[in-house]
């Protein structure tokens, strides 16, 4: 009478991309020395195309609604994936958008941030771990709510890199 396994995982999509990417990397290794020049790995809405040229590996990763290499994402049930650079949780804990209760959030959607700027906090056992933007740009979407429990590498917000 067990329920089907439930993942409290960040994003199915992201997992899928990672799985496909792992598979692709594995294939690249196995193809070393062969004459195969181009191949693609596909699962769901995620597709990776790899073209090998004289010692150079050019990878093009596409995900539902992303670049032209993806298969048609019909968006059934799920909205198109947000674009932008993901800012991920550095560890398991509670995500806070502000330095203390009642204070103004570190960032809001639309704000411009510099690389290295603190954009949130993940608290684990009363230790406050700052989350910093690793790129500068504009906060395009905040995905995690204040006070929400997050997993390792869960995407907290997206940043549209500057320039």
């Amino acid at each position, binding site marked *: 009478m067990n329920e089907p396994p439930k993942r409290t995982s960040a994003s199915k999509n992201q997992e899928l991309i990672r799985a496909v990417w792992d598979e692709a990397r594995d294939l690249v290794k196995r193809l070393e020395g062969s004459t195969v020049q181009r191949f693609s790995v596909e699962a769901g809405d995620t597709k990776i195309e790899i073209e090998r040229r004289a010692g150079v590996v050019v990878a093009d990763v596409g995900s539902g609604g992303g670049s032209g290499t993806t298969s048609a994402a019909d968006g059934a049930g799920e909205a198109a994936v947000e674009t932008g650079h993901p800012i991920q949780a550095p560890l398991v804990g509670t995500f806070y958008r502000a330095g203390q209760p009642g204070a103004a959030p570190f960032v809001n959607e639309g704000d411009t941030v510099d690389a290295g700027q603190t954009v949130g906090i993940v608290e*684990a056992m009363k230790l406050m771990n700052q989350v910093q933007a690793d790129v500068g740009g504009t906060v395009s979407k905040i995905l995690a709510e204040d006070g929400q429990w997050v997993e*390792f590498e869960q995407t907290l917000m997206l940043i549209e890199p500057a320039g």
Partner: protein
Amino acid sequence: MFEKVLIANRGEIALRVARACRELGIKSVAVYSTADAESAVVKFADEAVHIGPPAVGRSYLHIPSLIGAALKTGADALHPGYGFLSEDPYFAEICADEGITFIGPRPDVMEKVGDKATARQLMQAAGLPLLPGTVEPVNTIDEAHDIARDIGYPVIIKAVAGGGGRGMSVVTQEEDLPRLYQTTRATAQAVFKDSAVYMERYLETSRHTEIQLVCDAHGDGVYFGERDCSVQRRHQKLIEEAPSIHLTEETRKEVGEAAVRGALSVGYTGAGTMEFLLDLDGNLYFMEMNARIQVEHPVSELVTDTDLIQEQIRVAAGEKLSRTQDDVLPLKGHAIECRINAEDPDKDFAPTAGRLDTYVPPGGPWTRVDSHCYPGWMISPFYDSLIAKLIVWAPDRDKAIDRMIRALQEFEISGRGVKTTIPFHLRILDHPQFRSGDVTTDFVEHFMSEEAAAAAAAS
């Protein structure tokens, strides 16, 4: 009984614990690092939490992430498995502070038995036999000289905080003592952050014999017989069996009762193992106590008809032991376990990480495989190299060996770059000395030099 148990481990033991939980009607929560996202336990458990990157320091050893995962998922208990944080009293204490039942002994008890010098004192007081030596740490070289002269060479210097075969030196003659005393202390400080050492008589040939026990919180304890783990290489066990053919019924009862008495005398609760050396005259000497479930627990399960993990969970939940001493004795038949590791025996057992293209475990009567592997699973370089524990049972030792050989031959494992210990196990099982049961802890070393000599002669 618990409602939900978080399993703070990975690999086969995490799956083993999750299976026990399901049979007990308890929900299980797996935790996983990025490298283990596709692991068997993540699929099997009722929930799974991504706790960190592959490096253990930021995942399976990272206490805040484990506690965070337990609190978030509402787990009321935590099973530490073996290795990782299973014998860390600080971790057990934090679990208690957070209202999570740690499935193991109380932190203060764990600390006492984890300190080898203290454990020796306590067990001596409880009447367990010890090798001649010290129960107090040896603090100066002068003291070391006096003690060594007293107990006679060869002596062994051991780190109080040591384990896994590290932090010990054998001294065969007096002139080596100052040097080895200093280097053992320095190693102990570097590896275990505690330079304290103790000394005892060194037995050149002995058998590794250990008693499995479980104690409940109602003052009852049961010993589940012994295991012989003499087939080991550099203190890493390769083959374990139960029972030991070198213990008489009387000795088993005597030492088993003493082990339970010793454990209860320190307020021990949960599953634990007391390690002994058995000399060639049949005398047992207490070595140390392991405050956790062990890798080789299945052989004891098969000869006692007991699910030790379920028993461990039950007593942690405050229930009484479900088995009595009379239920488990006499031990039934003979069980053997081979550890199938992703290692290359021809290259000094170097780990061989890689993806498993083929993984077909053996089946058939009285054949058990505890493993987290499946075709396509990646044996990761980040963790230990255990692929599977192959365990067989038969009415007697000879038949168990035959069955193990059959099962090993059936086991198909392959992958690019992956080598396993299966061929090595087959050669050991085929060796007349192993068949006769006359195996001491130096057997593998002799066996390997014998093979090397034969190979050299043939070339």
